[in-house]
């Protein structure tokens, strides 16, 4: 084992949602830890900015591939563009708060396709095409929502994250014998654009539920993901790692 088991030196990591709050931070920390990253997102301009900000590494050029993962042909093109991977961070997702009686089929379908179908179909294609090398690690950005607790107005998002949790554990079971691990990180509130839908008052009230008295920074989540990508977590698979400042304790 490498002197530092937490290093990602020599690894190639695919990150979806690479232009987003958590995804861009994951890309940064992965590159700082020595990994070559392949970034994808639907927002090309931000994607290119993130790509340009990454420190160079010894194991190849970082790549950015714009893709709308809800479109089969773009998902396939991304997989075709991917080199052999040692890690896959399935992170892209959206959230919209809606009270149950106001859920529309359109909104339900849209969020499911982004948060649940696309991750499942992309994982399937990568595994089927044997793009993830033996010893590889898959990490989903799930959530404390759904898996550990539910909250008002968050039914659709929480439901999709529960789906990701079940999928993550199934992949861990099926691909363990092939030497591929699969885990998730489960954040509570993270200071990103995703929680822009909450008012300041709601956020202040919500923070009372956090024993550490703050929300997560994207870096808090990225460091958990890097642990799960690294050889330091070689015997960890099927785990939903809460990174929530103690929010789910009470």
């Amino acid at each position, binding site marked *: 084992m490498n002197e530092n088991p937490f290093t990602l030196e020599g690894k190639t990591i695919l990150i979806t949602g690479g232009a987003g709050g958590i995804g861009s931070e994951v890309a940064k920390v992965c590159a700082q830890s020595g990994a070559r990253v392949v970034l994808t997102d639907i927002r090309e301009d931000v994607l290119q900015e993130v790509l340009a900000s990454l420190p160079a590494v010894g194991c190849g050029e970082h790549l950015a591939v714009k893709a709308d993962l809800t479109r089969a042909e773009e998902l396939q093109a991304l997989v075709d563009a991917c080199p052999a991977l040692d890690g896959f961070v399935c992170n892209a997702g959206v959230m919209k708060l809606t009270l149950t009686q106001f859920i529309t089929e359109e909104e339900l379908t849209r969020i499911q396709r982004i948060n649940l179908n696309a991750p499942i179909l992309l994982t399937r294609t990568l595994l089927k095409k*044997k793009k993830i090398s033996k010893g590889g690690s898959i990490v989903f950005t799930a959530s404390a929502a759904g898996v550990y607790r539910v909250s008002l107005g968050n039914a659709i998002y929480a439901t999709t994250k529960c789906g990701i949790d079940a999928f993550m554990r199934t992949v861990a079971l099926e691909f363990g014998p092939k030497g591929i691990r699969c885990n998730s990180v489960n954040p509570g509130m993270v200071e990103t654009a995703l929680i822009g839908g909450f008012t300041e008052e709601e956020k202040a009230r919500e923070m009372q539920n956090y024993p550490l008295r703050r929300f997560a920074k994207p870096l808090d989540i990225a460091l958990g993901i890097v642990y799960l990508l690294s050889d330091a977590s070689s015997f960890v698979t099927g785990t939903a790692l809460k990174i929530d400042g103690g929010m789910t304790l009470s």
Partner: protein
Amino acid sequence: MNLEEFIQNFAEQFDDTDASEFKAGTVFHELPEYSSLIALSIIAMIDEEYDVTLKGDDMKSAVTIEDLFNIVKSKQ
């Protein structure tokens, strides 16, 4: 359907076994990597590629890859 292509699709369900190990007469149950999980992958591959739904018993009764090919062919 073609035997060569069937053998290739069969081989793709394995990760560690060398491609040269897969021939028409290969007794696949004896391959060290063969497992119940791989058997499920083969059944799923046959369903996807050949539109034939096999049962566990079909996998058991086939000795060689060609036997399995013939079972699939007979059900098409």
